[in-house]
């Protein structure tokens, strides 16, 4: 297993490769998974009334949303560039209008009409309508605040408790990142074939007593070994740093990701053979990785995509990997992922056949 050992030594001896394959994925995951503001609504409020009621409304909103207090003329810019999801302008005379039952309303602005705004809008609607009801039934401002305090007497109490629990979507997100970096790793390792060809290592091997098939098989095995080590390190990192839960059948999940390592390396061999140039092969995988992971459902749920895109994604190995991972994280039965394994192995066989056909010409060049 001379070629196998030698490839591993070449890989371990290259600090840039070690950093990109082992360290960068961890740093990335820390950066992307620490940002959990995905669902929280961010609201900009221009309070032109500066009254007790307007301040109380803002205080209530701050309990569950991210609230930014800005001027009216800043709202448009904030909304357009996406700094906030939703904006409110509380007009001057708001409190007076509520207390004296004059028609008064809050101006709202949003750019993207999203279900995300629903909760906040409902809350504001109910809160203001409650105040208007009180306003209709009082004579003056003093009575208004007296009644408000009286009506807040707690017959109903709300309590919120946050638990750690298993967050399946975080674990699924982690798998998405893992898939992305497996693809990067696969091209870094497969590019050794180009380097060998350019340095005439392949010629020397052919001239030696070592069969050509041994060179390819041992090279491929070395690439897979590096990939499996990468997967192992990433799982250990996810477990100890993020305390992620990967389901009761973790061993099967590990096998699934290892199978994807084989698929990725087989795909990278085709890319290497087609591009024939180390730089272009890096460039191509850089460009291909994002759509492959996206179409596989690695970044977001495929159910939100058009039907045509969902159909196309079924012809991509990342889709079957993510689906299998999702099922295992959500503790589906092992037999549910058997099809995923079968499909991934089919992809592997197909990619390997194509790369073997192309390799002969590649080596001659």
């Amino acid at each position, binding site marked *: 297993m001379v070629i196998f050992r030698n490839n591993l030594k070449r890989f371990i001896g290259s600090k840039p490769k070690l950093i990109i394959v082992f360290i960068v994925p961890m740093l990335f995951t820390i950066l992307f998974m620490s940002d959990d503001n995905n669902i929280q609504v961010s609201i900009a409020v221009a309070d032109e009334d500066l009254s007790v009621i307007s301040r109380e409304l803002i205080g209530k909103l701050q309990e569950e949303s991210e609230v930014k207090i800005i001027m009216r003329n800043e709202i448009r810019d904030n909304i357009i560039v996406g700094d906030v999801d939703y904006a409110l302008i509380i007009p001057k005379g708001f409190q007076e209008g509520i207390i004296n039952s004059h028609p008064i309303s809050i101006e709202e602005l949003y750019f993207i009409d999203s279900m995300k705004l629903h909760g906040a809008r409902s809350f504001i609607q109910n809160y203001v309508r409650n105040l208007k009801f009180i306003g209709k039934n009082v004579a003056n401002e003093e009575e208004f605040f007296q009644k408000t305090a009286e009506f807040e007497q707690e017959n109903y109490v709300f309590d919120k*408790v946050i638990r750690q629990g298993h967050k399946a979507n975080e674990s699924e997100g982690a798998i998405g990142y893992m898939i992305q970096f497996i693809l990067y790793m696969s091209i870094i390792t497969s590019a050794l074939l180009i380097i060998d060809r350019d340095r005439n290592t392949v010629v020397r091997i052919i001239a030696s007593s070592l069969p050509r098939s041994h060179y390819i098989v041992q090279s491929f095995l070395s690439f897979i070994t590096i990939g499996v080590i990468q997967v192992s390190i990433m799982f250990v990192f996810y477990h100890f740093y993020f305390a992620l839960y990967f389901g009761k059948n973790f061993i099967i999940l590990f096998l699934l990701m290892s199978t994807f390592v084989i698929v990725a390396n087989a795909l990278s061999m085709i890319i290497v053979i087609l591009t024939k140039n180390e730089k272009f092969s890096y460039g191509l995988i850089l460009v291909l990785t994002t759509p492959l992971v996206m179409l596989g459902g690695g970044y977001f749920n495929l159910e939100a995509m058009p039907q045509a895109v969902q159909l196309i994604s079924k012809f991509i190995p990342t889709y079957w990997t993510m689906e299998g991972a999702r099922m295992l994280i959500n503790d589906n039965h092992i037999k549910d992922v058997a099809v995923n394994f079968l499909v991934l192995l089919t992809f592997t066989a197909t990619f390997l056949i194509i790369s073997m056909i192309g390799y002969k010409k590649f080596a001659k060049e």
Partner: protein
Amino acid sequence: MFTIFKLALKRNFMNIPITVVLIFFPLLLIYILGNALEGMQESGITLQENVGFYNQLQGVEAESLNQLMTDDQFGEIFIIEQVNEKSVGLDGVENGDFTSFIFAEKIGQQVKISLVTTNKNTPLATVLRSFTETANLAINASRSGLNWQLDTYNQEVFSKSDDNLGSPKGIDYYCVQSLLQSLIFGGLFGIFTVLEDNDKNTYVRVKVSPVSRRKVMGGRIAANTIYITSIAMIVMSCSTFFLGANWNGNPVIIFLVMVLMALIINGVGMVFAAITNSTGLAIGLLTVALMLWSKASGAYGPEPSDSIFAVLSPNFNAKNILYATIYGGSQMMMFRAFGWMMIIMCATYLVFFIVEGSKRNGDFQK
């Protein structure tokens, strides 16, 4: 210098595979990302939660809460499952069957509605808090002899602002992000510009020629900039024509932004190449930059960062200028973003020339 520029530009455009990929990839990204993110926003699929519900209340109190749980709008986002015991719901949260668990119980004269959740930003909290406040109002009002009526709730609370923002579709909004993200790949040409000199001994030939290195670099930078800008223009045209994307801003401003982005991206590629002297590592750093800058500008979802890190990202500033010109943002925002892009561009090329200058008298053979 013009000869170098012409040759470099011709070589870039003659690189058919990369040119096709650089045009096709952003269009694919615009289509996928635009549709996916629009679908997610409309359906609220990212908000969907499995929610366990246990109602220990009786009579009218139970009915009003049950009504809330079965409300149509409520049901689009939350998948409610009633459980027979409190412990079942709590276990469900622990083992991940439920994201949230709501249970209502009477403690003396008080009704306590508890929400146990693994999602600290769950919209359920807002909904239940609102329900609790309204229930308190209704009960206390009735006790005071006031006729609390549901038709108070037909009054409109909101008015739509006169400030017409329009309602962009997903593709309209994300075409900008997707294009900027894809342009970062243009940094590959910056990398190749620097490292090809070492690989093919071009550097030695350049040093003995009468053309100064400054002119060689200048010609290549100009060629790469024109190339990347042309790619951007082609993508914009194709996305407008085939995907209906909205690029209806000031064309001069849009063109200037693309030129600046191209200059910056090319410069960044050259810096990475000059620092690392390794194609693989330079491309790795470019990948890191791609992901960081895209995230800072909100390319993976409409939640950009507003930290100093975001401000130093060319994507973030380019995005602000483009959205401002397309959707009517303020001139101050545009000027500020242009200013930052100029600073980033100057800093990038300053770093490159410092690194290159320090290596100039070194060994040219690699």
